[in-house]
């Protein structure tokens, strides 16, 4: 049947297709981010630089963390905020594994913020992808560390009184070997940065700006997935060599994506002489 043919996709080989359909809402950007990451992984595997049996996805809790449900690699769906320490244990116990952490901004930079900064400080050999949607979506629309000032959320019904956390700036201030930002409106950069990060050692951090029309969109009046996508796309600007001072996410001035930090500092494994 024609329908059966439609279900085949070049990336299906990396998915637990029996678990589809996924839980992500129409208009959610996580699937775009995951697709781009899988294309980069596929390229590394095809080049013989990555063994698919050595790839481990570690996630915490949240919409983005559900990635571990669907990828057909070794995967761990752990505790809220604790994906990075779990992944650190995995990597140090078996340095031959390529350990990838995926999470939302609440998971990675909110409840897991202390682990994020210490892993970056250690230059721990992990690739961390933080998918930023500016809100706690799975729990119904509460304040996130990245929620812009004055925005209404269900727990800030009078407007958010806290300026947002610039996670790229935070991680760049530490000892991370790679800090980049992309957007789901530019999936080719997600793929390019993932591909690059997978060829590096040490702590590699990629922030992916995403759309959440279902929850965040309702808060800011962009409930329509297409409108929200287009509004984000308008604001995203790629720069070949962005400086950290232009990394603040500002809905009015725009969102600068690109590679903020590319270093070759000795990684944790280099310094403890393992792997």
């Amino acid at each position, binding site marked *: 049947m024609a329908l059966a043919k439609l279900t085949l996709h070049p990336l299906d080989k990396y998915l637990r297709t029996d678990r589809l359909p996924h839980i992500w809402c129409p208009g959610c950007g996580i699937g775009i981010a995951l697709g781009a990451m899988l294309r980069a992984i596929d390229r590394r595997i095809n080049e013989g630089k990555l063994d698919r049996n050595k790839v*481990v996805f570690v996630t915490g809790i949240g919409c983005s963390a559900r990635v*571990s449900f669907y990828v057909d690699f070794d995967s*761990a769906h752990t505790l809220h905020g*604790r994906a*990075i*320490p779990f992944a650190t*244990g995995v990597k140090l*116990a078996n340095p031959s594994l390529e350990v990838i952490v995926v999470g939302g901004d609440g998971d990675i930079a909110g409840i897991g913020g202390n682990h994020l900064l210490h892993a970056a400080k250690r230059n721990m050999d992990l690739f961390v992808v933080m998918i930023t949607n500016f809100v706690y979506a799975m729990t119904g629309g509460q304040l996130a560390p990245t929620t812009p000032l004055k925005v209404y959320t269900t727990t800030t019904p009078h407007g958010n009184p806290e300026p947002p956390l610039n996670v790229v700036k935070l991680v760049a201030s530490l000892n991370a070997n790679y800090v980049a930002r992309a957007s789901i409106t530019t999936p080719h950069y997600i793929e390019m940065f993932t591909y690059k990060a997978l060829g590096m050692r040490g702590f590699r951090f990629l922030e992916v700006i995403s759309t959440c029309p279902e929850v965040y969109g309702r808060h800011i009046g962009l409930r329509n997935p297409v409108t929200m996508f287009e509004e984000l796309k308008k604001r995203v600007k790629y720069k070949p060599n962005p400086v950290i001072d232009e990394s603040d996410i500002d809905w009015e001035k725009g969102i600068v994506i690109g590679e903020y930090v590319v270093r070759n500092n000795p990684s944790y494994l280099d310094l403890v002489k393992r792997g």
Partner: protein
Amino acid sequence: MRREFLSGNRAIAEAAILSGLKFYAGYPITPASDLMEYLAEKLPSYGGIVVQFEDEIASINAAIGASWAGVKAMTATSGPGFSLMAEGVSLAVATETPVVVVDIMRAGPSTGIPTKATQSDVYQARWLAHGDYTIPVFAPWSVQDCYDMTIKSFNVAEKFRTPVVLLSDANIAHMWETLYVREPGEVEIIERKKPSVPPEEYRPYQPGLDLVPPMAVFGEGYKVIVESLVHDELGYYRQDSVTYREMIARLNEKIRRGVGYIYEQEEYWVEDSDAVVVAYGSTARMVYPVVKALRQKGARVGFLRLKTLWPLDEERLWRALSRAGKVIVVENNTGRVYLDVARIAGSARTFFSPVITVDPPKFNEVMEAVARWL
């Protein structure tokens, strides 16, 4: 086998190395820090690694991650740090991860008295986390016991795919005694059961007859799923009562069914006694000479030491205690293990006689606590 002179904490570290420890994660806390310091010095030469993490939350989660990467992992802490590990312990329960957690009890609540020992955290060891579960808890009373029970903790963690709590305290941790340590090959070291089927047939949470699923780890091609949500045999999240009941029943039952292997008690003069004193850990060290002295004066009193606090072999404990007319439980807390002993002791009259002190219990204090009920 050879004789050594070690502290309780060093004995735990030595036994962990013998058991095959390869990953230690921890955060400094009195009175557990010297265990980590000792391992940090020694473990690298055995091919292992010691990492000081940013907190106890990271430590327990890293240990769980390391276990899933295929190595034996441990962390050690004390009450406040153990509190921070609560959610991690529940993750290890749900994902059936072998991991050893050493808790060196001090005085609580809150910051309490960091340098002094009590037995106030025995329920913390038993029911630290949320969720309906059973995990093994061991309570050594000597440096030799620290050594032996550490090996047992690793064996039980691997055999039953469970977190295990080794519950020492500040007295035993920093007490030096001679002990016999083993050479490799002199003691049974258990490794987790591996799958015997190829990856395409592997169901990560499908148990064997012992209710324990064989454990594939990362990097072996099995596409392992580690799932903190309630899950079926495939590791897939399910929100229904049938899956929940099956999972919870098995997680508890695999430990209960293993009680014959896990549970140990020691009996001294219990057979012919009218009264039996029950104690464990550092308090038991003073109960023993007190009971001995009472017997020398002609009292028909015995002593039963719990080496395993949970799961209790209730039938075995009942058989030992029900013959006596009286059972006296001496603990350095307001009555924790007493509640179980009173329930199990059958027709015996049970008495709770606490010795609450932040110093090692004195002979006279324990004598008074015991003699009061004879």
